[in-house]
């Protein structure tokens, strides 16, 4: 398959500060590719280099096999959807969408036809005479997308365009964006700090931290097989335990938790005996009060704290040992655990295959700070 975009060893430095550090990735034609990372990780800088607003300090950017280094933004076959959309308030919807076409020198009936078709496609038929100030947040979003898509770019870049919308609309627009992308077949590069947007919409997601990519993978793999401690913490909810890795003669591995209890782990091949490690278990991978006799499960006694009711997203909070860190366990939607009182002891169990462990290098995500 043809590559729509190929980024090769791109570095961007601002003075002594390295915003993007030796990043490489390829995006196939027609894919939805997301770059996920916390604020300040360099993802906007990377996007602006692809759009042409910054020149990389070193490295190469190719669009459909041709280097675009040194090409001005107005000559690159990519378009950018800005965070705050940057629709032109002095023009109406039609003039906004016509803007790029007119700059190319297209005129008359062809332009009108393209605009009407594009408005149809983004679900805004009959809106061509509306002023920008008359549109709702979601409609502005669609006009911004229409304004770029009408130019048939090789790659469409999106800089957290859903950030300014309220929650309900954001949920709706996520699905709509994905459907639109599938329908038009344009390559989308989407940057966001919201892991749910990235997981839901993308074919591939790159997790970025401090100017580097930590992992590029499908959303499923990213969630189930995180490649680093940061990815495990940043993508989805996760429970973190710290302990020491103990390797046995038959190559089975155990982690000794803080109070001496040992739990089994799978996939610890890269780790050394006696190494300090972090153990991650997803909330939905844990079973409350598992049946006895399931030998392969790790079982831990924890202190019940409270139940957070959030519809289908309800969780049980507990603490382990002396630590005040909360353990989150997904709760089935029944009232089986309503009788629990704070400080009651309950058992939680999980399959070693469903946990992940990494060398403890002391990374903290912002919910821990």
């Amino acid at each position, binding site marked *: 398959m043809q590559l729509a975009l190929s980024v090769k060893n791109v570095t961007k430095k601002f003075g002594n500060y390295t915003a993007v550090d030796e990043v490489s990735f390829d995006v196939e034609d027609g894919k939805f590719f997301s770059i996920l990372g916390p604020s300040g990780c360099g993802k906007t800088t990377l996007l602006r280099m692809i759009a042409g607003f910054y020149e990389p300090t070193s490295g190469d950017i190719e669009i459909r096999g041709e280097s675009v280094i040194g090409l001005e933004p107005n000559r690159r076959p990519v378009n950018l959807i800005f965070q705050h959309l940057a629709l*032109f308030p002095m023009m109406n919807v039609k003039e906004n969408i016509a*803007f790029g076409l007119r700059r190319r020198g297209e005129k008359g009936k062809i332009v009108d036809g393209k605009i009407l078709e594009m408005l149809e496609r983004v679900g805004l038929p009959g809106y061509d005479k509306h002023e920008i100030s008359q549109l709702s947040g979601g409609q502005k979003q669609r006009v911004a997308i229409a304004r770029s898509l009408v*130019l048939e770019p090789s790659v469409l870049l999106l800089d957290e365009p859903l950030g300014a919308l309220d929650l309900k609309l954001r949920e709706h627009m996520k699905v709509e964006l994905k459907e639109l992308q599938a329908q038009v077949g344009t390559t989308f590069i989407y940057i966001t700090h919201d892991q749910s947007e990235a997981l839901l919409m993308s074919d591939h997601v790159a997790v970025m931290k401090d100017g580097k990519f930590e992992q590029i993978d499908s959303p499923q793999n990213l969630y189930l097989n995180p490649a680093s401690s940061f990815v495990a913490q940043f993508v989805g909810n996760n429970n973190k335990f710290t302990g020491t890795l103990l390797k046995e003669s038959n190559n089975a591995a155990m982690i000794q938790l803080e109070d001496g209890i040992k739990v089994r782990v799978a996939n610890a091949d890269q780790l050394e005996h006696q190494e300090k490690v972090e153990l991650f278990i997803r909330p939905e991978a844990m079973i409350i009060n598992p049946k006895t006799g399931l030998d392969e499960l790790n079982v831990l006694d924890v202190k019940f704290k409270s139940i957070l009711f959030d519809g289908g997203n309800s969780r049980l909070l507990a603490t382990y040992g002396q630590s005040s860190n909360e353990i989150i366990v997904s709760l089935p939607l029944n009232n089986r655990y309503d009788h629990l009182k704070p400080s009651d002891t309950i058992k939680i169990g999980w399959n070693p295959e469903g946990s992940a462990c990494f060398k403890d290098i002391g990374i903290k995500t912002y919910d821990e700070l």
Partner: protein
Amino acid sequence: MTNYRKHKIKWSFLVFFTPVFLWLMLLFVIPNLELFRLSFLLMDDDGGMVFSMINYVAFFEDSVYWLTFARTVGYSLVVTILVLIVALPVSFYITKIANIKTSGLLMVMILVPFWVSEIVRVYGLMLLFRESGIINTILVNMGLLKEPIEMLYNDASMIMGLIYTTILFMIVPIVGVMDSLDDSMIEAAYDLGAKKKDIWRTIIIPHCLPGIMSGCIVVFMLVLGNYITPSMMGGKYSLWFTQQIYNQFIAYLNWNQGAAFGFLLLFISSFVIWAALKLTGQKLTEVVK
């Protein structure tokens, strides 16, 4: 209770309103009404005053008057446009390119000359450009000129002086509106394939139009009603209409004629501004905000 409150509001209102009202009435409205009345009076053979349109008719009959007037309005328009052409890139640099420190410094550098009076500023320019001035001395010493040339006392030097004395009043309102233009708007246009001149034409100027119009109105009025700069820097043929009015009042002591000229200036400049607002689709109330 309500009566008492009403009373109180009226008092505080009067305290603040009276000085303003007196100031405007005594120093502006009444003198102008009196001048307006004077402009329709003519001294008859017996020395009494009679109603007459002769002061206004004289303006159109004597070509020196309306030619001076046309020249003044024409040059004022030219100066306004030139000031705009200079002010737009300057404002753009201050608001969009320079960092905060530099842009503050630049604004101060534009403001400081306006702390001294216009006469002093014009003399400053004359020191630079006159025959024995700094520029001539440098050019002669460098051997670029054999002998000093006179750069002052012509229309070009007058226009330059007028641009210099009014540019602040164009830059300040334009910087105000340009500051409110989101940078991403310019980037979006650039990203969508616009060239620099397209961005100016389709994004920056339409956005800044209220500021541009208010700057243009102020500069046009200041230039049209300027007396000092044309008198000091213009040549003997660079007659400005304000000088005609001055002559009528001071040299010929013909207050009636001077008043008529004054009102003609007011009417026609108001008309020019009205026409400019109509052409650009702006409203006066928005422009003067």
